[in-house]
């Protein structure tokens, strides 16, 4: 059963030592060739790897910030744009600057053989050209992931106390791996934990991305826990939420961590409370937890969070279904997202009658960045 965020602060016992390898897959620059990277993302998932795909058009900074926060075992970059000799040195420079040199970077795509030596020289761990076998790639990723060094707790705890995000990221990894934290107990903190839930595709991640930015711009420290399902068969996962939150950065105190629901033995329930403790102790003001579907089978989000935002979209019929299923009751407020689409007003009136009390209903469009500020105003009244 899920333990409450208000439980005693001592971290729970080791529970899991089969955390799957985690890879961040990145496309950098304006290159839109994504067939290969998506084939790999699925193949990795099917091979029992957790994949965080950060989507198209990323900068080197955002990619390495993501690698830092996610504390992945490997960063995989796909470049078919002939920009590798510009991009790779920049990534490696940032890797050093951010003090995450333990994370190997591998590269694939259109990379002429004659550039391989230079890339190896600068520190790229492996290069895969067209025609590479996916099995070989999977093998390499697993091999690199297995090489990760054990976490140096003393050092990391010092870093955590100094509010270094890479230390926080590593401690979360320890929890995922079920390693003992050497008796370390994070401070209690006073973060407001808010669950964000709703049917698949209503725009939860996009909304959190914008809300996070808004809160950060108001001087708040924001963390996000984005939870996606694992494949019950392979244990791998495609963690797709982060790609809508790529403005997160250590410099802006906007921390995003993706978790796979099955990543820990005993399921998410087993580690979520501890991860939350770490985030709270780090001193965030708001922790937003994204989960899919406020239904059965979902983590008892209510028990972890002090408030729940239910996200809906026009014409989805969710309001009606939710009120039948009794899900409406758990929400602190409602966010009717995608209001740039037709049918927003009609859905709003349905929602008003389904809610039947004074809980607020916000209309937003993350596409147009509309209505987010009003949700932020409301959030700032919560404690």
């Amino acid at each position, binding site marked *: 059963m899920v333990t409450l965020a208000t439980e005693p602060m001592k971290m729970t016992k080791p529970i899991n030592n089969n955390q799957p390898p985690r890879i961040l897959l990145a496309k950098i620059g304006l290159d839109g060739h*994504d067939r290969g990277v998506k084939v790999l993302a699925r193949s990795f998932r099917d091979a029992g790897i957790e994949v965080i795909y950060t989507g198209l058009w990323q900068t080197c900074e955002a990619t390495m910030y993501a690698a830092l926060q996610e504390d992945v075992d490997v960063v995989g970059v796909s470049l078919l744009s002939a920009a590798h000799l510009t991009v790779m040195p920049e990534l490696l420079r940032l890797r050093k600057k951010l003090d995450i040199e333990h994370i190997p970077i591998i590269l694939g795509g259109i990379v002429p053989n004659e550039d391989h030596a230079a890339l190896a020289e600068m520190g790229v761990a492996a290069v895969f050209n067209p*025609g590479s076998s996916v099995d070989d790639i999977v093998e390499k990723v697993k091999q690199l992931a297995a090489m990760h060094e054990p976490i140096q707790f003393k050092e990391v705890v010092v870093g955590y106390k100094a509010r270094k995000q890479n230390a926080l990221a590593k401690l979360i990894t320890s929890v995922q791996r079920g390693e003992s934290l050497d008796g370390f107990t994070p401070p209690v903190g006073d973060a407001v934990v808010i669950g964000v839930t709703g049917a698949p595709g209503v725009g939860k991640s996009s909304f959190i991305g914008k809300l996070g930015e808004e809160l950060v711009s108001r001087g708040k420290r924001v963390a996000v826990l984005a939870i996606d399902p694992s494949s019950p068969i392979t244990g791998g996962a495609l963690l797709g939420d982060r790609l809508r939150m790529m403005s997160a950065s250590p410099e802006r105190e906007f921390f995003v961590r993706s978790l796979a629901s099955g990543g820990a033995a005993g399921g998410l329930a087993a580690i979520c409370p501890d991860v939350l403790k770490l985030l709270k102790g780090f001193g965030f003001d708001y922790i937003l937890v994204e989960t899919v579907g406020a239904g059965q089978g979902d983590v008892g989000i209510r028990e972890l969070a002090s408030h729940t935002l239910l996200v809906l979209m026009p014409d989805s019929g969710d309001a009606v279904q939710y009120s039948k299923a009794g899900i409406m009751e758990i929400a602190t407020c409602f966010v009717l997202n995608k209001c740039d689409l037709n049918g927003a007003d009609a859905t709003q009136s349905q929602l008003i009658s389904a809610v039947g009390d004074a809980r607020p209903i916000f209309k937003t469009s993350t596409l147009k960045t509309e209505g987010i500020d009003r949700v932020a105003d409301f959030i700032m009244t919560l404690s």
Partner: protein
Amino acid sequence: MSIEPGLGKSKRSTDDARGKPFVGPEDLRGYDPATALSVPGSFPFTRGVHRTMYRDKLWTMRQFAGFGSAADTNERFKYLLAHGTTGLSTAFDLPTLMGRDSDDPLALGEVGRCGVAVASLADMHVLYDGINLGEVSTSMTINAPAAIVLAFYVCVAKKQGVPLDQLRGTLQNDILKEFHAQNEYVFPPVPSVKLVVDTIEYCTQHMPLWNTVSVSGYHIREAGATAAEELAFTLADGMAYTQLSIERGLDVDAFAPRLSFFFDVHNDFFEEIAKLRAARRMWAHIMRDRFHAKHERSWKLRMHCQTAGVTLTEQQPMNNIMRVAYQAMAGVLGGTQSLHTNSMDETLALPTEGAAKVALRTQQILAHETSVPQVADPLGGSYFVEKMTDEIEAKAYAIIDQIDAMGGVLPAVDRGYFRRAIAESAQAEQRRIDGGAQKIVGVTDFVEEGTHDMEMLKISQDTEDEQVSKLKSIKANRDATKHQAALTRLRDDATQDKNVMPALIEAAEAEATVGEMMDTMKQVFGAYGGGPEW
């Protein structure tokens, strides 16, 4: 709703036709050549859009080219024309394709590398310098900023003194497949298609010989779709543009003849031929029966084809010449109007002059030595090919029905239907390759150790540096008042939902850059971060 991309997931799009060692008349149920085929040049054009096909006029050999600066590409164009290419096709670099100026931070390292850098009207003048736009037909592969590039082209023609109604060529301008496959979208889907309709409307009024949209299956297929998906998605996109243009108030017969199509020719020789034949038959019916077009010209699906880059290998790259030759022949047997053949160095970089020449020669050999073009649709009436044509057509119609059931292409884009279907097919193909079910010569089988020693085209960093400084000087020296006024007008016209073409032409003349015009429109239309991915 429980509509999921599921159709066409088998190995091929034509399994039925191949269930037996040979196909005979008993396999063609209800086959009536008079209605299914007719004669070349007649409805439903299964056998080709012209009666005499290549006897009177060979296909256009149109090699996609563009790299480095506008001057570099201009030189390549002249080289290709000198070696017998019969139409130009312009490849832009990634910053231009994404509507960003060469000095945009995200353009770093990408200027001129994957195509030619065009940021302003000045670049466009250099690109077509010394090439008479009244004589050579030009195609331009650009989508999100297509309307802007069209505005540049109009300005260049005006300067050359060529009347707009004599301009022949094609603007790719197919934004829907960007959402499905190529990923060069900038604005959200609805304003994106509005821009396409703006160009259709403008060209219908001013540039009657210009192909306004090249409705493209190529990118969809290269991204992983099956042949049936390529066919269905492309025609569905064509239907969407048609519907929207009619809703704009245009007469279907005024614009439909200027919609053109662009297909991939992949490895599966007969299936590809069947696909091209089915495409014509389906489109003819769709235009006549669904959109009630009255003119025969509106029913004819004219197409450009390109050989399948994704089938080419880095290993033993000379083998690519053979792959391209077979694919090119399938395109011609399928009755294409225009063809690009890929170069053997496809997986290395943009083609060298030498590799591009072999690719062109491959077409010339096909045209002048093989006698393949002598008779229209030589495979017409083959039990096997007719069976395949029927089968792929049926599969494509079933997919189009699914799209209709979702409310059409735009709602299906919102749900991520196309992307998911394409990615799943790509994944299925990868599994077949990894599992040994699909062989690739030189990669999975007949492997050789060692690497090739093929020459490679290199684009130096100087291109970027020069382009950026040229752009900076344009920005510094233009008439700021005129420039500002033009962008203000563009914003106003976009806000008031007017056709933006006149404002874009004014802005082009006022030396506004691609990036500036795009940013102005972004203020009104918003920017799109992409639809559902998994």
